[in-house]
């Protein structure tokens, strides 16, 4: 009997020991969920349709697949664009809705590039379509002196409400009215915030937009005597490039820090011989803006490069005579898209191409619709080519080069001009 008792104890202890030494089976969890990408969509916060404005949307889809366009706040106002040729398509936003400022958003498979051209006989403006951001962004070049007026435009096309905090800076320093410090943008709507009265008499304002929840695409609309400028909010970067064409020399370079620390900035100019030379440098505090006249940085056409140790947003602001235009800087690349152009009745579309490479290069411009053929351009290092586009029916062009280039475009119409950076895609 003692033997049996011993056997029972040994058996149970052995089984329990086995359990102690074995581990609990690990759960098979398989492949992890991927992080959310930026998403195949664009928001065009600065489209102006109605009230005398015609707004044309130019779109490029590298996969030439259909794209849905929807007016923000009017979900039933929707249409599907069928790209042609290389993947380009145009659309009259007024066919969807005419709300004055009529933000729209696009979605569909593929990589999208889009911009809007909005114009009247006396005014023209270009505005890129952008992604909504949850990181800090900034808008530059607003003013409220004399005939100048500025309005902020916040667009939330998504299904969740968004809320943001604003930090406005002017030549007076930090300048945010308390009732503009926090703004809620309900789902699927856009909110306009006029600055002209609450912040009147400011010559140069910039605003940093910090998203608290949700995502927002922002733009500013600056109105002058007749012309106007639309500027989209951009997140900060450490390097910005500008092709300074002839008319741009009369403008100003605005810098706005969106970093958390004090940073240093440095501006280099690239002249027609390809030489890079520092022309300005300094420190920039968090939330601070710096305004530099372009004429002090360059006396002739060429390129400018803004580099900073903390994220900044940099832009070119034109405010001469009736002309009002604001353009952000860009990065560098070898493939660019100019998504929209003017028709013969709207004005002349110009493309400015700056060769940032070390050697000369050939730049090919191809209409997104496939027709007509545009002659290639030879470009020495540091040189800027100014290419007038033929009437493409409002469609855009693909700009390609073997060299690193920077591309901007504009629509010139009498005393009105709209300028914008093209979008780099490679």
């Amino acid at each position: 009997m003692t033997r049996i008792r011993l056997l029972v104890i040994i058996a149970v202890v052995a089984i329990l020991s086995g359990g102690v030494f074995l581990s609990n089976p690990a759960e098979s969890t398989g492949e992890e969920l991927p992080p959310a990408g930026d998403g195949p969509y664009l928001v065009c916060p600065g489209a102006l349709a109605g009230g005398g404005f015609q707004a044309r949307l130019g779109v490029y889809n590298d996969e030439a697949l259909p794209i849905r366009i929807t007016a923000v706040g009017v979900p039933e106002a929707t249409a599907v664009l069928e790209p042609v040729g290389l993947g380009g398509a145009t659309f009259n936003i007024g066919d969807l809705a005419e709300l004055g400022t009529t933000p729209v958003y696009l979605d569909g498979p593929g990589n999208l590039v889009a911009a809007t051209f909005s114009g009247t006989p006396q005014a023209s403006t270009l505005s890129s379509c952008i992604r909504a951001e949850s990181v800090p962004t900034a808008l530059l070049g607003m003013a409220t002196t004399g005939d100048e007026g500025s309005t902020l435009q916040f667009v939330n096309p998504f299904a969740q409400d968004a809320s943001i905090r604003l930090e406005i800076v002017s030549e007076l320093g930090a300048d945010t009215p308390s009732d503009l410090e926090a703004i809620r943008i309900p789902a699927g709507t856009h909110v306009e915030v006029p600055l002209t009265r609450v912040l009147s008499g400011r010559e140069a304002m910039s605003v940093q937009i910090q998203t608290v929840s949700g995502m927002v695409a922002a733009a500013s609309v600056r109105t002058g005597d007749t012309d106007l400028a639309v500027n989209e909010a951009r997140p900060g970067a450490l390097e910005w490039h500008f092709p300074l064409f002839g008319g741009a020399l009369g403008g100003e370079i605005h810098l706005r820090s969106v970093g958390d620390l004090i940073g240093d900035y440095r501006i280099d100019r690239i002249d027609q011989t390809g030489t890079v030379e520092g022309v300005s440098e300094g420190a920039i505090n968090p939330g601070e803006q710096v305004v530099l006249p372009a004429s002090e940085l360059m006396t002739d056409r060429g390129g400018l490069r803004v580099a900073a140790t903390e994220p900044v947003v940099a832009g070119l602001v034109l405010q001469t005579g009736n002309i009002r235009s604001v353009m952000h800087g860009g990065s560098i690349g070898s493939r660019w898209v100019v998504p929209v152009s003017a028709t013969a009745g709207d004005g002349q579309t110009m493309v400015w191409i700056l060769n940032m490479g070390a050697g000369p290069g050939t730049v090919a411009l191809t209409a997104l619709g496939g027709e007509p053929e545009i002659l290639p351009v030879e470009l020495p290092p540091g040189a800027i080519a100014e290419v007038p586009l033929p009437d493409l029916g409002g469609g855009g062009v693909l700009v390609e080069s073997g060299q690193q280039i920077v591309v901007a475009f504009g629509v010139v119409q009498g005393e009105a001009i709209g300028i914008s950076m093209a979008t780099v895609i490679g």
Partner: protein
Amino acid sequence: MPDQPAPEQPLIVAVVLFTPGMQIEETLSALDKQVYKPDSVLVVGGGENERELIAARGYVHVGSVGEVLGKLAESASFVWWLHADTRPRPDALSALVTEAVRNDASVAGSKVLVAGWEDQLHSVGAATDAFGEPYSGLDPGELDLEQYDVVREVAFVSPLSMLIRRDLLRGLGGLDASLPAQAGGLDLSQRARVAGAKVIVVPSSEVFHADACPSDRPGWRQRAGRYRAMLVSYQLITLAWVLPVGLLASLADSAGQITLGRLRPLISDLASWVWVLGRLPSVFKMRRALRRIRETGDEELFRFQVRGSVRLRETGAEMGERLSRALEGGEDDVISERAKVVWKRPSAILALTGVVALLLATRSIWLSGLPQSGFSLLPGEDPVSTLLAYAGGWNASGLGTPNPPPPIAALGALATLLVGGKPELAGSVLTVLALIAGLAGVIRISRRTGVTLAAGYVAGVVYLGGAAATTLFGSGQWPLLLAAGPLPWALDAVMTPVPVDGRRRFGLAARGGVAAALTAAAYPPALGIVVVGGLLLALAMGRPRALGVVGAISVLGALGIAPWVVGGEVMALLGAAPVPAIQPFWFWPATIGLATVAATLSVSKAHLPMVAWGGVAASGGWLLGMIPDLPPGFGLAGLLAASMGAGFLASTLLAAGEHRWSRWLTTVVLIVLVAPAALTIVRGRGGLPSDEWSRRLDFVSAISEGVDPGRVLVFGSPEEIPGQTRAVGSVAYRLIDGDRPTLEQAYLPGVRLGDGALEQAIFNLAAADSIRPGVALGQFGITWLVVLPGTTALNDALIRQVDLSPLLIDSDLRAFENRSLSARAVTDEGETWSWTGRGYEGSPSSGRVVMADNADPDWSPEWAQADWANSVSAAEGRAYFRANPTVQGAAYGSGLVLALMVVLAWWGRGGVTAK
């Protein structure tokens, strides 16, 4: 013809009710000898012999009770209702009439004495409790010492000898012929009272009545009759509280009776309610008739009722008596000496705690219903559809499958049907019954090994509330809790000596088979415990003949779930949920190791087999959950076996010898084994987790406003999501059909085409591949998306989309409504069809309808595959699934086998209680 009474005396019609088996002659002779002569005598029923006797005396024969009212003379004031086996004393009628007139009573009953025992009381009127249970106040065999000889009002009188005013009898529509004697008397007395009549007992009117009267036997018909009387007499406001409270009291009483070793009261209750519910239309008719003559409220009835439940009081008294006997060492001689020793230890308190603990541990289930969490889910509202799915129809869990759902779905559906289509009630009843059966079963097995009742209770407490059970049930494994009920009864069949005669042998196998089938129905892998545990038990007990019983009940158990055995997805069920770990990790091996050592070294030779079985089950079952790559279903079943093993170890510890060293060790180990049960008692949910899902998705039906709400896609951790989940990385998800996770959806079928597509859609959603994820989800019929707290993987994606609108439900739940087209079935024209539980219905059209269920060619009419889904012709306005004939046949077969087993178990029940 009897002599005419004096003119001033009321005229009486005597009605003698004959039931086959009665001796009427003595009653008729006694009638003849009455000093107060009835005006006429009607005899109801009887054969040729009785008719001759009736005719010889000039009495009138009546065919049925229903004809009596029509034959009563208009001049008669009273009717004397008398049973044909009742022998009234000569002055019985005279006393009744005199006292009825004097007291202005409309109903008067005699004192009933047991025939053959001149002084033994049978009835002197009685009170009832609020639930109709009679309370006479008489002790069994109480003698008549004239202690009750006072005319008084009572709740009811026996219809064995009852005088009733003729006009009242007519107004009440006579006695309810469907009721047995006592219940009939109660019914008539209650109706008379609410009609304004006075009901008295007249002890000076004595009648003798055979004790074994066929019409007055106690049993389920009497109980059913009382329930019916209650339904007829009470006003609705009274019924609103009496019915639920009465049901709870019945359940509590049945639980108590089971612990006393009696299952019959529970069966009697169930049979009574089935009988009553089957005759509801006539109840309504009687209520309408009573409403016309009702004079008083139910307060008049309450005046003659005792407080509380008579049944509970009697059961409690019996339990107390038994406990007293045990404490006094009055148990049978085999264990009497041991009992004396045991009750000197703290185990006596534990035994008492066992009964109270069960009530306390399930209080939340009794009061608030089954908590909805994990696999603890209520059956759906459409049990018939679930049963059809189990019998080869379309199983709609997840994105659907032609394979039947696990048998627990059918068990839940059957229970729902049995309780009148109330899933909440079905869930609570199943849970409470399982706990009661589990406790009683383990006590029964323990007692067979020779330990005391107290030790059996301790085994039950550890089995259902120990660390293993708490961990298992606490993880939401309700199916295993249900399996825990019949499992010990299946093993008990192995412990029962195999009877010599064939009938009892069949009965034993059938009883074990039913228990095994119920175990398997609750959780199929638990059948493995019956097989392996039964084999080990037979070997440990040295009873090789029991191996045949193990084989038989295992096969019968498998036959009981034949549809799932034939067509179910075994691996899907085995992998449905991980094995919860007993915490802290060292607790189980340390406790079981110590308990085994203590028990092995201190118990007598007789208890050693149970120690061995308990030790091996407790350690081996736990080990199963530790083995990597072993399907977790085995580990879950293993944990249940471990729990049972620990229970038996605990019970044998109480039988340990009187070594000084072992007394303290066994006490400590026992406390450690029993302690986790305190948690179960404190929480009051039978060990189940807290309710998370019973109302959480109510917004779905509220917003849907009667339209088919579609499917809900829930993201969260596997522990939080109800039922089985699928996982993408660290995020778990599953589909829920409609606004409530139900039992038939608990287990997801194996991955099919649509499930793969859904996983891809979820990847795309997370990657924000589109700002319109609702379009993709809508193709799966997903109208709602719910993200549980703590799940952040989708946050970035969900703020980059335009068609999933957030709903402000509560701060603890992120819910979204899909604004894109989402329907489970859509025609070419964009018309949506609705899910009916078995198929789809909608407007007929010439095109086709695409149904968001996993593709299967047995859909009709004119099936075609649409990617991962089904497309059928919309011409008939319905889409239906052709049941799998093999599974269907298996379903009918298993139903037949189960019914046969129940009949055989009943037929051969005599031998199973042999010691």
